[in-house]
């Protein structure tokens, strides 16, 4: 079976969760006899480094790079449909896919779904990674003015967030997107929360399956470090992810301000945060100031190599995921669960779903530095303790891979091969 996994980026170039999930799936598929997966990643022409629309990542014939034509960020469609069609025609002629599995549509445009269906007549799967179909605000479902959580999109409310677009344009946007999604045979949502949001938005619940992202086959929890390997004088709380205004690093830093000094003296905050330099100056200044003025020890380590994550997770006592947007199914939660690190998570969306309160970690009120401080104080003063059982990654990956194969019609294909 020929399966094309199409991602909005290659994780070696752009290490977002969606790209990594797509690539992990590709790696797992490669281990299955009879399966011929190809990973197709959107890339800038400069990353392809020659003047073709396509290239091969590090010369690998099963890892293609693709520079699609420009994309309309409002309508989630290509602005050059005919050029996109030519690209898809080239891909279809080359790949002859039985299944095309999209991990995202940004940069391509939703019209790519119908083009593959039309030109390849193949099974079409789309994994949803955030709320970009529903929300024009970076797919975050938070209000533009004050980043308040938003639970429902409507033309009038979206117009209030983006006065430059009329309510009617938001109406048309939704209709247009709905039309472009018609060729999709099956949607995959890595979380129930994200599924429910899309169903409430209008997606047919019968067309969407909840299937968790896979972690790479090579992901291993490092052996437990000896007791004296971690700093016992302080409890380490680690933040892993982008330092942007949705991920809540400031909530964590603000929480420290509310700790009694004797508690703060026992706390160390470690930030493994990327892309701070790309944020608005006001946000950068706020983070810098919060670190400088912190009453606890705070270390900003910057971005990390993904291969180092298990060891970095092992080096913290708690992982904190303080996002102020809903999230979907953050890979870092799965990774922390595999390593067995307890998680302090915002009590909303995909985080509340994936971190069982009192089992895998603790919930705190999203956006509330006070509640997070109370949880940290409770942990440091040993009034609260959570000892999660590490997630059996092999079993989980196997189950999720089977779920994907079912969606691809793999059993039927094998039966056909056998006969």
């Amino acid at each position: 079976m020929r399966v094309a996994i199409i991602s909005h980026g290659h994780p070696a170039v752009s290490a977002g969760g969606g790209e990594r999930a797509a690539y992990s799936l590709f790696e797992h598929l490669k281990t299955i006899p009879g399966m011929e997966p190809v990973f197709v990643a959107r890339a800038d022409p400069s990353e392809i480094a020659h003047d073709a629309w396509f290239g091969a990542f590090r010369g690998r014939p099963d890892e293609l790079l693709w520079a699609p034509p420009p994309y309309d960020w409002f309508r989630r469609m290509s602005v050059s449909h005919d050029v996109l069609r030519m690209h898809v025609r080239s891909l279809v002629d080359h790949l002859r896919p039985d299944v095309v599995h999209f991990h995202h549509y940004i940069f391509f445009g939703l019209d790519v779904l119908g083009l593959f269906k039309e030109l390849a007549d193949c099974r079409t799967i789309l994994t949803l990674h955030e709320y970009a179909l529903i929300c024009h605000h970076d797919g975050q479902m938070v209000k533009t003015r004050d980043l308040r959580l938003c639970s429902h999109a409507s033309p009038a409310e979206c117009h209030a967030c983006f006065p430059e677009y009329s309510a009617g344009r938001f109406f048309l946007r939704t209709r247009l997107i709905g039309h472009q999604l018609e060729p999709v045979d099956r949607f995959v949502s890595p979380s129930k929360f994200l599924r429910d949001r899309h169903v409430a938005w209008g997606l047919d619940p019968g067309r969407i399956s909840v299937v968790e992202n896979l972690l790479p086959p090579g992901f291993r929890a490092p052996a437990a470090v000896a007791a004296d390997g971690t700093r016992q004088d302080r409890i380490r709380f680690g933040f892993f992810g982008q330092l942007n205004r949705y991920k809540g690093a400031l909530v964590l830093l603000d929480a420290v301000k509310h700790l009694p000094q004797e508690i703060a003296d026992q706390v160390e905050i470690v930030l493994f945060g990327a892309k701070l330099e790309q944020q608005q100056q006001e946000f950068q200044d706020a983070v810098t100031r919060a670190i400088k003025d912190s009453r606890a020890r705070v270390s900003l380590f910057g971005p990390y190599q993904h291969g180092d994550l298990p060891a970095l997770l092992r080096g913290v006592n708690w992982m904190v995921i303080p996002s102020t947007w809903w999230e979907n199914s953050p890979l870092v939660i799965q990774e922390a669960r595999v390593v067995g690190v307890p998680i302090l998570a915002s009590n909303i969306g995909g985080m509340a779903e994936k971190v069982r309160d009192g089992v895998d970690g603790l919930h705190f009120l999203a956006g509330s530095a006070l509640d997070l401080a109370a949880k940290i104080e409770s942990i440091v003063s040993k009034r609260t303790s959570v000892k999660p059982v590490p997630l059996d990654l092999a079993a989980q990956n196997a189950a999720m891979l089977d779920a994907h194969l079912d969606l691809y019609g793999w059993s039927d294909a094998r039966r056909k091969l056998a006969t």
Partner: protein
Amino acid sequence: MSPTEGPNWLARVRGLATPREDTPPTPIPGDEAAETLDCHLDGARTTDGQRLVIHGWVAGIDTGTLFLADADRAGTPRRLDPVVTPRADVSAHLVNLGRRVTTDRHGFVATVQQDEPWPSMMRLCLVADGKASWSPAFEVKIERIPLMALLGITIAVARQCSGRMSEAVERLARPLVNQPPAPPTVVEVRVFEPPGAPVHVTPRVSVVIPFYGEGHYLLDHLVAQSRAPMDIEWIMVCDDPRLAHELTQIITSRRSAIRQTTSIVYLGANGGFAHANNIGVAHAKGRYVLLMNSDVYCRDFSFLERGVSILEQDQRTGGVGFSMQFEDGTVQHDGMTFRRVPWFDDLWASEHPRKGMPHDWPAPPESNVEAVTAALMLLRRADFADAIVFDPGYIVGDFEDADLCLRLREMGKTIALVRTDEIWHLERQSVRHIADNDGRRAITLLNCLRFNTRWDAMIERDHREQGRES
């Protein structure tokens, strides 16, 4: 058709809209002794340099006829048709000068036009009882402002008048707009055929969509083609040269997705709603014409079959409209009726029943109505052999549809409405760019006056016969 007679005041307005024969004053050049007129010209505004809206005050303005003349009193003075407004401040000023004051009616606003450039020095002249009183020569500083702002001023003035607002607007605003505008030139027609389809197949229905202000809607219509019947053609009329590039870019970027013959008719200038539609119809080949606004969205096209079926089965039906929703599911259109509206001096205006209420279409699914919107309207092309569907004398996109429906009814035809759940109209979102509120209101009022001048008697008679409320 001939205009019908309306109420007396309406006839008066019509009279004012045309120049009256008056005897110009006969000043004596150099007669300084005649400079006895207490007055002041506060300002003059123009858009095109020819049509001026002047405002100021003249003591005793109600007692005679006002003229504007060159400072040297050479040439023929321009007779003014001023709208008079109260000016208590002027009364106080006149009392201070020792004049006898019996009224506050001293203020005036007038629209006046000449082809030549206006001189910088002018005079006012009031003729009463055959005697001319002249003002001293004064300098006139002419300010240039956009037309819509100028029209908005006329509404602001009209609000201060004790008389009918519409009368004031007719006198001040009508001369500011070109009536009727000349049809714009068709600069190019580009025809896009669906890939692999036979060309020159006679379509059953021609869909005519004018574009003004926003071109992005074209993409939505092109995507909608996959849901539309194959025996239709699309005629997109670019009534806004600023959009020409955008429309071309959108359609040429997705030629492979075109499903039915699609033409873009590029106009050399913005000709307005009526001209744009008329030109689109002139290019149509279908037996039926579906007029569609660019901001109408159709989930599917079964409504079209129902509309065509009505026209095929009943020759008495002249036009078919369709119920439509707003983006929030409330009623945008469910037919129109006419009602005298107090905010427009009890003139007849279109009323949209239940507009903005959650939609729950009343039975029956098809019925005859007084009028329907032309935002989505199906017609027989043969009924418009001269391709004059809309009267271009209406400005911007108001009342043309009501006027069309009444013309069809005057021909003995009926207007049908098809109720359906499949259509949305994101109304006014392209027109919104045209004007500020007051400018827009002035235009609506001018259109309303034109409509009433023509149809007042017929609507009155119909309502009386049918026992309807006015």
